[in-house]
């Protein structure tokens, strides 16, 4: 590597014959240095900045929480037992759209005479899938064995590994078939209400569904009125590891 001596940078023209610095040459050399640094810097910085803008792009894009139809009301009997339903929503990955993908799961449960509540299956600690074994009176996370009561509260409070209780999601009941295009495609895949355990075991729901085979449109349900409804949930992703519920961005 040839290293130029700093003394050499002032070119011979910059010096008066007797060796004294020439003011005009000085100014010229200052301007030259300035222009050299600015233009050279710009030549490098503009492409770098152009790249960085694209690189930083994701910071300005916000995540949206889809409203998802997860089940029929008749699939959640009023017995306070949680039932697992996968959450299916359109997933967009860069330039691809995947219709009706399983993006998560919720537990739905309903006490006598009350609206159903929805608890996301994503553990607030590290995002694992919280499990529920039928007959048990607690939820348990397989990763770090956090336990939660059936209403989502931590069994051991702040001594639990999980920093907060299970996250509740906003629930909305809509008449069956009232929404056909937004969120749920009308094709067969929309049967997101896939019960893990409840339907086959709960006599009320299954015998009701089975008895009226000749008139499917009038299918009975656990609802005494005979009027079923769709359970819609806003599937919000919350950041894990925090005490507060912070929406993932």
């Amino acid at each position, binding site marked *: 590597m040839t290293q130029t001596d700093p003394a050499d940078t002032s070119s011979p023209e910059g010096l008066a014959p007797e060796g004294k610095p020439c003011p005009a040459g000085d100014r010229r050399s200052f301007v030259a240095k300035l222009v050299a640094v600015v233009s050279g810097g710009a030549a490098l910085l503009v492409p770098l900045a152009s790249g960085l803008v694209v690189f930083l792009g994701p910071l300005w894009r916000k995540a949206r929480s889809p409203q998802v139809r997860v089940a029929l009301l008749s699939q959640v009997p009023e017995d306070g037992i949680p039932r697992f339903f996968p959450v299916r929503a359109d997933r967009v990955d860069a330039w691809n759209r995947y219709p009706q993908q399983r993006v998560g799961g919720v537990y739905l449960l309903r006490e006598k005479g009350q609206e159903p509540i929805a608890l996301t299956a994503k553990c607030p600690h590290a995002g694992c899938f919280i499990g529920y074994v039928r007959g048990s009176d607690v939820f348990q996370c397989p990763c770090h064995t956090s336990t939660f009561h059936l209403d989502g509260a931590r069994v051991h409070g702040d001594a639990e590994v999980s920093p907060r209780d299970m996250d509740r999601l906003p629930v909305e009941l809509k008449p069956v078939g009232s929404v056909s295009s937004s969120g749920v495609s009308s094709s067969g895949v929309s049967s997101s209400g896939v019960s*893990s355990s409840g339907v086959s075991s709960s006599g009320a729901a299954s015998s009701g*569904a089975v008895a009226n085979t000749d008139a*499917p449109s009038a299918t009975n349900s656990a609802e005494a009125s005979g009027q079923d409804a769709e359970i819609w949930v806003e599937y919000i992703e919350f950041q894990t590891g925090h005490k507060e519920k912070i929406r993932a961005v």
Partner: protein
Amino acid sequence: MGGVHRIPDRSQRENTSRMNSLVRNVADWFDDRTGMRKLMRTALDEPVPGGARWRYVWGSTLVMAFFTQAITGLFLWMNYSSSTQTAWESVFAIQHELIGGWWLRGIHHFMAQAMVILLVIHLTQVVIDGAYRAPRELNFVLGIGLMLVVLGLALTGYLLPWDQKGYWATKVGTELSSQAPWAGAMVKKLAIGGSDYGHYTLKRFFALHAGLLPSLLMLLLGLHLALFRRHGLHARYFQGKGKVQGKEGALFWPDQVLKDSVAALMVLAAVLTLTVYYGGAELAAPADPASPYAAARPETYFLFLFQFLKWFPGESEVWGAIVIPSLVLLLVLLMPWIGRSRTGHLCNVAILFVLLGGAGLLTAQALYDDNFAAWHTRDDAPVQEEPRQAYLKRLAASEQFLQARREAAHEADRVIELALSPERIPSTGALTLVYDDPLLQGPKLFRRHCAGCHNYQDPQALEAETNIINPAPTGSNLFGVGSRAWVAGLLDPDQIAGPHYFGYAESPFLGEDGMVAWVRENIGDVASDERAALTEQITRVVAALSAESHLPQQQQLDRDQASRIDEGKRLIAEEVGCTDCHKFHDVDNEGEGPDLTGYMSRAWLLDFLRNPAADRFYGEANDRMPAFAVHQDPAMNQLDKKTLELMVDWLRGDWYRPE
């Protein structure tokens, strides 16, 4: 020139010397324009104080390892495609289709591991020798920078195959980075290129892995080597002793290069041995964002961090994940200044050994925890209540881990089997293979929708891994439905009321007019002289009824037994009298029993699952089986068509089998 008597040799000699001078001229020409000779001399004639030694080879092996990675990485790059639909698929092709692909990938994979080990050796040696002392402080800092770049390369490389293992392990990693103070969430978002993992994540990781980090590594390595040359080799044994021992005047070339090259070859030999032993690097099942992989673990050399995190529950995790590692790194970076005094130097050595020892212990502990269930059983549990609970918890966690790993290995084998089939991988990617395969999806769907009542248990292998067991079933065992063996058991008076058929509590088939009573009366209670003839008849009925299912596994059997099946069909409708209760093809006596036409065939089962209470099946007698898809409007149904088809195909053993 030579005398007259030497004439015969002269032309030969002249040729040689002309050749030599030509070479010399060309070399001179190049040297004149490049200063090549001086450069080579500077590079190679470096004196090695005290002579060449084996203990100087570690830095050189790292350089060699880097070049191995650059070369193999470049060729891998030629075959790799970084998108979520093609990453796993292209790595699959490298691993299983390209000639020598597994070998190439194996070298890249295991050399990465070797590089981490070599880094640790190199660092340990530098610290013990105090080679970071003035004027070498900056070079030590550069070295730590190089180490971080290498670890970054390892971290980013782990995700690139986009398999379950890399996907979930890396996801935990980026999830942790989001807990860093101030900019955590932003760092995470920038690293993965959005809110969730996808194309952009792979693209970014790949650009880091193959572009930015290697460039940075080359830059730092250049500076590292330049400074190394500037300061000369640090010869610990000869400083301050006044006299340099060993061979005086030894030079880098060829004395040390010989040792370096031999060491490099040894490292490569170790890497090749591992590659052959493991058949190359592992490729797990394709990443599935919808099914978290419980056995996801980082690479072995990051395991200590993973284990370390377990000490920091809840919100304190940020300490284990970010704060403490950063402080440790800072401490290591300060070593040259701490080590200025003799005490400080000893401190450094102690710190290093505590860190390495701690990391080693944590790694061992992580491995031990994960494999706990492989070495312990419930019987070994302590008697006292508290340690007992802890023990059982540990055992359960390990069992889950091992189970998840077994299932993942099974899934990986199966996807690879499907990808190698003549159908190949669809353009939507290998995940479609996973989602559309009855063999992979069937057991999951059965557990979710059927196992609440039914068993799936091979009566010939009650302990088989594939069994799905409900200890208190309220429905029949569905293993092998429609097969000869299954139908034969159904018509066997000794079995029909047993655990695999209708012997469960409150079975509706146990009634006076039920199937069980019929079988016992008509097949069980017969005079001994009629027994042989009846047995013959029943065998034919079994063949005919089982043939109705058209099970893919029985195609050959159905062809071979064509005449027996025809005879059986006649018997069903006539002598044996099944049609008293059941419809069978054209014979319909409007009985209560389900239609036997196409019994357990794909279409029959699909219709049955849609609505078992249809007149054609159990009608009003159905007291428990849910109707999974009874409605015209699919939105009202519990299960969609595809789910039902996967369940039915799996029950019928209708899935792809390689030749």
